[in-house]
């Protein structure tokens, strides 16, 4: 069965590019541009994996992830952070991101090409 990815990316040019790349792996990608849309889509589509930017309009991505994890049905959905925010800014809270929010990987956009993203998505879905 085709796996479903919820991509939360506020920039629609980047969202199109990531959607293209992930679809080429045979994945079904649904895109949300903001936190509100993401909650609605997660409810409607029950994704197998969430890829999330941390800089969202009107919301911090971390705030969104806490809200996302507050729903029992979504506790086990793996989350990959793909963000413009460098990981060293989260160095103190990396453990929190993993333990409390179940973040599988933190990818820094400028240093993550599509090839690497597809690799991480593939291994997360298979694990």
């Amino acid at each position, binding site marked *: 069965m085709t796996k479903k990815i919820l991509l939360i990316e506020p*920039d*629609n040019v980047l969202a199109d590019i990531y959607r293209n790349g992930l679809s080429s792996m045979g994945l079904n990608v649904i895109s949300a541009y903001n936190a509100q849309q993401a909650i609605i889509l997660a409810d409607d589509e029950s994704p197998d994996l969430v890829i999330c930017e941390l*800089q*969202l309009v009107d919301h911090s991505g971390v705030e969104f992830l806490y809200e996302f994890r507050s729903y029992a049905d979504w506790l086990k959905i793996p989350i990959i952070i793909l963000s*413009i925010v460098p990981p060293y800014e989260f160095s103190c809270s990396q453990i929190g991101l993993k333990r409390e929010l179940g973040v599988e990987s933190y990818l820094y956009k400028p240093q993550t090409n599509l090839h690497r993203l597809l690799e991480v998505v593939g291994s997360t879905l298979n694990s």
Partner: protein
Amino acid sequence: MNTDLGSILLLQVQSIEGSIVVDDSSNIQLNSVSQQLLLSIAEQMKMPLLQISRQAEIGSMGLTSDFTNIQTLAENALSLIDGYSLGLQLNRKLSYELESESVSVSSILYDADQQLKALARLYNVQLELNIGGKYGPVLAHKKGLLAAIIGLASAIIEALPSQPDETQKTLSLATHRCRYGIVAGVYANIPGISSDALKRGRKLYGFSRQPLVEISHTSGAGIFVADSILKAMKLNLHVSRHRRMYGLGVVLQPSSQLTMV
């Protein structure tokens, strides 16, 4: 296209960021307004470079890559850099060419509309031009006013798709008369645009990656570049409304002498 190009450009931006002084406690020390603006630009520039780099990578993977989009993104990034350097020149009065002149607001907005069409199309934003009504010329620096309008409009175009509202996103370049003068501005359906948000953003830019959190997911550098250009022209950027749309505009003074001529 060589995919390494995008990566090289991204490294350049990271090295600009790295050149900003960082003290022992990792707090960024920003000595001047221009350094704050530079950091905001560096943060903003990551976006087009990322888009170009990933677009090129998509092409190298054998998937469809649109070269027109790459051109649009690069040109928009270039105009932001141009706006930044023009702002610096205006603030330092580096050139005799930077004198004010008689300017038609309608023609400035028309030129901006022409330059922004491709970017608006790329972001699925409908671009409108509202320059009806006869307003006399104003005294301003023509290049500066055009760069400010383009900076503002680009920042809002990029921010529009991520707004919660599901309706078709529209950006209006408009002019109207108010009791203080003639307003030239950019307007859209972003309820987050408020005087408080702008005031907070001005305090935070250069210190926060996303100073205008209610408006944009980026550093919103276009807005601060416009702010700096307008300040150099002794003008102020205000939150403004036009036909039920929220936006940012500048009040320009008509020149009665020029109107008589």
